[in-house]
């Protein structure tokens, strides 16, 4: 395509994609400089949803910040809740009851499935197939029902607390979760039959925007995007936290099965496969969950010791790191959230050079970015 563009030079055009655009997953703005249909340069312009979450963190107490972590990444609110709780617990050295940790893992992995379902659904919708989106939401609604049972909300849960979780699981929750897993497990092959190996779909994704493993590490890609490039790095395995060492699961990596290693298709398949692994983890957690309290003793006026801590958790979009500085008062002194989507956008300009405009949409979808996390 590049050769053709050189043979037929046309005038360069500046195209604004976003901030209001259906396939930018929110309010991302991409400034495209194109030569005909070929992208010469695509510069992301972020910040249209900058809500000052870090400044707010300095003005509220540790417990009050929990609802804001919901809104940091609303597709994986449980994971963000838990990441915040784990960070503060690491800072203050709070021992969390084991049952609470198991509950956290169950809800985090369920939320990971829900998040990957949105990634799968909206990505395929971007690629022109609207039906899988309806399938994905159908399953996601059942996870929403489960979460509604335990905390009363569908999207922003505020369920995890510093020192545990806000309430024990409701009656029959584990049975209902099991029923859901039995229902969901055969759905993943169904998705694969429906779209994953569809010829048009594969052609749209294979060999598009391949990221080499070196680039992926250097540009700070994490999570499924890093593993899509064939780097088997998963914080749940490599830097285990919570009760993740208790579970047996595989780290899914891209293999370049339909094209180059690290292309859009690999990143897509990693997410599909991770849903299966999450199902495995939840099944094991349901088997092993102990009885006991779900909340540690945490004083009402919670003042952690002076110190600085960096904690990172494996969220659906990658490594959510929280750098927390405490000066011993009730408010955090400084709170920096290292959001995976934000760092991922750094590589965007590099890998979109020379692609077609339609492929830019594929790249955005395959990275599974989410805007509140980019802009915070």
């Amino acid at each position: 395509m590049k050769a053709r563009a050189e043979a037929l030079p046309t005038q360069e055009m500046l195209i604004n994609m976003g901030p209001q655009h259906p396939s930018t997953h929110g309010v991302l703005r991409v400034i495209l400089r194109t030569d005909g249909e070929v992208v010469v340069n695509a510069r992301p312009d972020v910040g249209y949803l900058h809500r000052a979450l870090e400044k707010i963190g300095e003005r509220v107490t540790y417990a009050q910040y929990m609802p804001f972590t919901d809104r940091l990444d609303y597709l994986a609110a449980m994971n963000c809740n838990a990441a915040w709780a784990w960070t503060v617990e690491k800072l203050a050295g709070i021992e969390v009851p084991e049952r609470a940790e198991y509950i956290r893992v169950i809800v985090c992995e369920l939320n990971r499935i829900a998040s990957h379902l949105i990634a799968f659904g909206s990505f395929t919708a971007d690629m022109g197939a609207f039906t899988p989106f309806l399938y994905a939401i159908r399953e996601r609604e059942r996870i929403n029902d489960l979460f509604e049972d335990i905390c009363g909300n569908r999207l922003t849960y505020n369920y995890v607390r510093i020192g545990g979780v806000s309430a024990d699981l409701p009656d029959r929750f584990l049975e209902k979760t099991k029923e859901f897993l039995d229902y969901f497990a055969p759905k993943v092959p169904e998705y694969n039959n429906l779209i994953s190996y569809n010829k048009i779909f594969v052609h749209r994704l294979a060999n598009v925007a391949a990221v080499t493993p070196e680039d992926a590490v250097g540009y700070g890609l994490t999570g499924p995007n890093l593993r899509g490039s064939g780097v088997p790095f998963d914080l749940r395995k490599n830097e285990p936290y919570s009760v993740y060492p208790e579970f047996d699961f595989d780290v899914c990596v891209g293999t370049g099965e339909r094209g180059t290693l690290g292309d859009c298709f690999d990143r897509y398949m990693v997410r599909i496969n991770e849903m299966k692994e999450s199902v495995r983890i939840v099944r094991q957690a349901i088997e092993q969950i102990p009885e006991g309290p779900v909340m540690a003793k945490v004083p009402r006026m919670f003042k952690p010791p002076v110190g600085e801590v960096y904690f990172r958790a494996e969220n659906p979009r990658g490594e959510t790191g929280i750098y927390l500085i405490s000066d011993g008062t009730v408010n955090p002194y400084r709170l920096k959230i290292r959001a995976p989507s934000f760092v991922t956008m750094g590589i965007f300009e590099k890998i979109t050079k020379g692609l077609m405009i339609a492929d830019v949409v594929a790249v955005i979808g395959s990275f599974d970015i989410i805007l509140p996390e980019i802009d915070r």
Partner: protein
Amino acid sequence: MSQDPAQSGPGPAASPGSLGPEAHVMVGNADKFINWCRRSSLWYLLFATACCGIELMQAGASRYDLDRFGAVFRATPRQSDLMIVAGTITHKMASRVIRLYEQMPEPKYVISMGSCANTGGPFYKDSYCVVKGVDLLIPVDVYVPGCPPRPEALIDGIIKLQKIIDQKKNFAAKA
């Protein structure tokens, strides 16, 4: 509904007292007719900025099926009648919201979905860059509370908007 009477086949069997199978006549108020058209095809602009956008998506998808009310999402403001502001509006975004609203053809309606669009929501007090309510920028017809509102609440908002449209007088003398 849209079939041309001249081309349609034989209609339903004439019941006693009706005008017969050929006659397709409805007599009514023009206002009512226009409003009925408008309220039943509320094409909304997919303007999802934050959390509420996901509930908006889910409201339009399998379980809640917003299409029942004639509300179909559009990607461009040029084809939309209704703007559902779903999510936080920041100062950087403000001028774009106004522009999108101006690009929509008349008559146009706005639903402010969720606390952020209503008032700034949880970001009201401590955030330096969140617009404290989308009504500072554009006129709003219906406010849907919640953070985020459930899809049922959004559907309720749309039905409320339909009631507003029903009351509109299209032929009133201009003041």
